[in-house]
């Protein structure tokens, strides 16, 4: 039987007007009450009408940014039902809580500092070029830096080459920064590798570094198994497997 108190919280819950503590209490209650779930689902559907009523066409750039980002973004699979697991947050967007924006920025503060110089360099020196692609990239970078779990790592090679990365395991994305790399030389390219483990784990190419390898920022999809990034010098166009000793090798934060 539904308690009067919970019943009265159904509409504020559907309107998302509860403070977090009461919201969680309602969600716990809903988990065990079919009737209440039905009633709250109906109220939530009502609120959707309020949302639809204020529909507004977004700027066209949003579409290309979102569709581009989705191409490399991994999806979150629900965990297989395992009775031993702790009861994680309830399924659905309703309870996917996030730390406050300010906190997230603070977490990513170190990451920002690492990337800012390189990013700035890229944008200042670019006279012509595809602005839209640039913006898409900047958005992708921003998204990783803003992720609650963003963690930064950096390493310096023997010749002062700097390889850095900001990793969000949650997003499955990494922002890679390179700076201080000398020109690769005629007939050569720098190639970035994602490695499962050192020294003989799986290695997959993460693409060539752009010509201005002196200062670049790239975003890359990152499988959970990837533990290292490395850069090697390869014949122009790249190789299937690394053929030279890495110029720089960067262990990635686990999570």
């Amino acid at each position, binding site marked *: 039987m539904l308690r009067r108190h919970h019943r*009265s919280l*159904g509409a504020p819950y559907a*309107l998302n*007007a509860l403070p977090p503590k009461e919201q969680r209490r309602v969600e716990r209650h809903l988990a065990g009450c079919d009737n209440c779930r039905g009633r709250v*689902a109906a109220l939530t559907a009502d609120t959707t009408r309020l949302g639809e009523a204020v*529909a507004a066409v977004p700027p066209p750039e949003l579409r290309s940014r979102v569709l581009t980002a989705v191409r490399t973004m991994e*999806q979150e699979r629900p965990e297989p039902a395992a009775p031993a697991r702790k009861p994680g947050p309830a*399924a659905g967007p309703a309870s996917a809580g996030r730390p406050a924006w300010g906190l997230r920025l603070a977490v990513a503060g170190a990451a920002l500092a690492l990337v800012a110089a390189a990013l700035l360099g890229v944008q200042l020196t670019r006279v012509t070029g595809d602005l839209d692609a640039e913006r898409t990239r900047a958005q992708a970078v921003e*998204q990783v830096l803003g992720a609650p779990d963003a963690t930064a790592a950096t390493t310096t090679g023997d010749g002062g080459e700097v390889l850095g990365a900001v990793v969000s395991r949650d997003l499955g994305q990494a922002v890679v920064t390179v700076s201080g790399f000398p020109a690769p030389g005629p007939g050569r390219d720098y190639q970035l590798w994602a490695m499962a483990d050192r020294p003989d784990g799986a290695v997959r190419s993460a693409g060539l570094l752009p010509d201005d390898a002196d200062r670049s920022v790239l975003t890359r999809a990152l499988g959970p198994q990837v533990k290292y990034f490395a850069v090697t010098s390869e014949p122009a166009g790249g190789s299937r497997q690394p053929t030279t000793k890495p110029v720089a090798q960067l262990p990635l934060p686990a999570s």
Partner: protein
Amino acid sequence: MGDDLEGKLLALVGRGDQDAFEELYGLVSAPVYGLVRRVLRDAAQSEEVAQEVLLEVWRTAPRYDPERGAGRTWVLTLAHRRAVDRVRSVRAAREREERVGRRTAGPAFDEVVEAVEGRMERDWVRRCLQNLTDLQRQSVQLAYYDGCTYREVSQRLSVPLGTVKTRMRDGLLRMRACLEGAA
């Protein structure tokens, strides 16, 4: 909204179907952006939050469960939560109170460019909102469009908490009855 097209697309998106996502984008981007913009007001922030929401739809689509509601409701609930998270965390409480205070007096529907396909729906919802008592309408609107908690609504309207909760429920139910009558 008998057959839930968004829900069907979400099921495909949940299996990594990018074409289905593109189609879903066409259906939900205007409601998502419009709603976020209604709550946040600021165009740049709205675009940013709308983008976060749409990417979160892609990432979490595998978790969408049609048993729990229509696809459109799932997406808009997510959008509303993210928009409200943002107003509540970014804006200082005082600043927000001033803003809401100014806004309560203003028109309920604002200058944002409205989507053509939403116009019918918008007109009906607007009409049905006018059918509510003042207290019902203000309770619903302050919560949903301004991101106020029910406590804030209670303070703003100077009515007891219990009253706000029931006015919210009565307001939503009355609006539902009105919209069903209109359909």
